[in-house]
């Protein structure tokens, strides 16, 4: 008792703790009739709850965590219930990854809860760790129809209901347009792909050499062809994915997008390889569409306005794309006759594109992080 004596006094004056209290991060994105979720649970918490340290040496290795994957799933799912209008949704964990928050490593559970009906009222019952750590909290990020809301689960409020009320169609559609626009600007891979295709648009091949194009109209038709083909292709696959007709694993999609950028860059250096650029744009556009679909899924698709959100998002993507063309084309057209265009901009630019995209490809295909972008 004597130790606690002084401790009680000193507890007041701890200069802030060495750790954060226990939190988990739950993201739910409401789709038409199901919920896509990600749940980040601290490895330290899982170690306390179900014991992860197989060899008892005080260090958790990936091997130890991997061995316990089934137990982690069983433990976590027994403490989370998602239901739609009093109808329990069936939850399945799809993959388990690792991530780091400010206070250490977390186990990432990606899951899908199938509710078998349109979700109008979503009820989430969260009971993780409350029995062993009364100060644990679950921080929820709920996305639906492009809008995000947050909530906190605690021992006092473990169960919360979210009514996915009708929102203004106009606001919602503006939201999706903005998201589409941002996505193309911030998703450097799409910008780079487009630029790689556009770089040679102001030139023509004459006798195996680049020459400046003479007519603006031919340049424009060339660009229109490329952009239209890209748009048609990605709209097609974006729709297929959004309506859940085709689904591809994200790692495959993301790696292929990176590969498409590499090939587009190489194509500029070896123009004989890729003579019809609009066909290239169409072919690879199909892949990029699946990439857009992943973003759209993260935004949470409202069931009652799936088509509207899809179209709005796509409009945003096209506006963003046209802005890039509008910024690039006049400049390229003006300097196309200079000595530097074919050498510095076309060749140098394409080399840079290839180099960057190779890094992306390696990162995505082999699941490495080489370069913080």
């Amino acid at each position, binding site marked *: 008792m004597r130790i606690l004596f002084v401790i009680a006094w000193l507890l007041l004056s701890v200069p802030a703790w060495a750790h954060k209290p226990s939190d988990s991060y739950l993201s739910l994105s409401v789709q038409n009739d199901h919920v896509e979720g990600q749940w980040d649970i601290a490895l330290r918490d899982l170690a306390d709850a179900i014991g992860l340290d197989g060899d008892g040496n005080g260090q958790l290795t990936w091997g130890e965590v991997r061995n316990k994957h089934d137990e982690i799933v069983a433990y976590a799912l027994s403490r989370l219930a998602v239901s739609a209008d009093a109808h329990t949704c069936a939850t399945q964990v799809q993959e388990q990854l690792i991530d780091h928050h400010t206070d250490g490593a977390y186990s*990432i559970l990606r899951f899908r809860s199938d509710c078998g009906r349109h979700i109008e009222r979503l009820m989430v019952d969260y009971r993780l760790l409350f029995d062993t750590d009364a100060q644990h909290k679950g921080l929820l990020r709920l996305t639906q129809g492009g809008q995000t809301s947050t909530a906190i689960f605690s021992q006092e409020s473990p169960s919360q209901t979210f009514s996915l009320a009708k929102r203004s169609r106009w606001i919602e559609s503006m939201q999706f347009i903005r998201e589409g626009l941002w996505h193309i600007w911030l998703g450097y891979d799409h910008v780079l792909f487009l630029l790689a295709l556009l770089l040679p648009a102001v030139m023509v091949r004459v006798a195996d050499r680049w020459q400046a194009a003479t007519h603006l109209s031919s340049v424009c038709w060339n660009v229109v062809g490329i952009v239209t083909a890209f748009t048609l292709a990605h709209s097609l696959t974006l729709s297929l994915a959004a309506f859940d007709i085709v689904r591809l694993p994200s790692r495959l999609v993301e790696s292929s997008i990176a590969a498409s950028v590499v090939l587009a860059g190489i194509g500029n250096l070896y123009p004989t390889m890729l003579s019809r650029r609009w066909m290239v744009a169409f072919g690879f556009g199909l892949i990029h569409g699946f990439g857009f679909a992943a973003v759209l899924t993260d935004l949470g698709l409202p069931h009652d306005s799936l088509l509207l959100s899809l179209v709005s998002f796509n409009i945003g993507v096209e506006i963003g794309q046209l802005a890039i063309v509008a910024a690039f084309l006049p400049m390229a057209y003006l300097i196309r006759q200079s000595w530097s265009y074919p050498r510095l901009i076309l060749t140098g630019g394409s080399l840079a594109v290839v180099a960057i995209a190779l890094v992306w490809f390696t990162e995505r295909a082999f699941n490495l992080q080489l370069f913080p972008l």
Partner: protein
Amino acid sequence: MIRLRSLIVLALLGWFILSLSDRAASEPYRPTDDAQVLERLTFKSADPVARELAMLRSSVRQNPHSLDSAVQLATRYIEQGRSEGDPRFLGQAQAVLSPWWNEPSPPSAVLLLRATIRQNAHEFDQALTDLDQVVAIQPTNAQAWLSKASILQVQARYDEASRACQRLARLAASHVMLGCLSDIDGVTGQSAKSRELLRQALSKPALSGRERIWIATILAETAARTGAIREAEQYFNDAFMVGIKDQYLLGVYADFLLDQRRYQEVISLLQSETRPDGLLLRLALAEQALDLSSFQTHTAELAARFAAARDRGTIVHVREEARFTLALLHDAKRALPLARANWNVQREPADARILLESALADHNLPAAQPVLDWMKRNRVEDFHLQQLARQLQEARF
């Protein structure tokens, strides 16, 4: 045109250069190596503490309503939380006490622990209610009086705090009451007499290590407040000589060094103490003063931690956040409301100081008024606070 081979060479070169940059895990990933260490736990399974906790836990599991086992385990958790600096242990202690937690008047052993957990969450009034219940049933419970005194002191209710300390006279060893009283006197300008007695107490060989640190730290802080730098240094030294790592001691000593611009010493003191937010904050302050590059990464790290704390809706680190916002982000506009909110909860010299500094930086004299009143009313003896108060009154905004 370039040949294929040189293209490949160039591309590989670019790939190599880009890949040299730091790994920054921003996305969830699947590790490729089974041996990769992801996390270090507090205990190995063979640690004596881990074994003891496991034993206590199993006895609670067998009989969750046994008061004795629950109190024993919760006490052990709280001690562990203090020495590891890990608030998870407090949540675990609370969970162990859950059969009694929501009762209006649980047994006094539970009340004491509940008060400790509540005071840690800065729920001071609720904690005081619990402690008042304990002393009503057991007027001789020294622990309750000491806890009560410490909360009252943080709330700047010095008379009540002193009265609570005096109740310890015949209930505990004399140095406990002395420490309790002189910590209060040290703020309110009457430190001379109790300091003398405390100095004698420090020479007693019977003190436990933690008690020795506690007393030496009070003496050092009091000396530092009156500007007796050499004396303070001596007591800090006494406290460090005990050889038990103490976060509070590290924090106040770092502040002492920062005040004297001994930045290099702060860095050697705290270099390996980047986990506690409060210590990382002081390290970053020293790095800022010396213009070191690590200052950028540490500031970003702190910003992320404060954001994470805000996300969970707790308001425990406001003092540190105010200091971070003012001294590292140089944003007086945002620091001032934080410092004011903090002053409404806790009123120690450090809380007064950050509010005065924020008010001065934001040219807002009225915001500082509550602290100036507090200083006057209690005749606060603190050389830095008096200096700041003078600056505030002389400045014409």
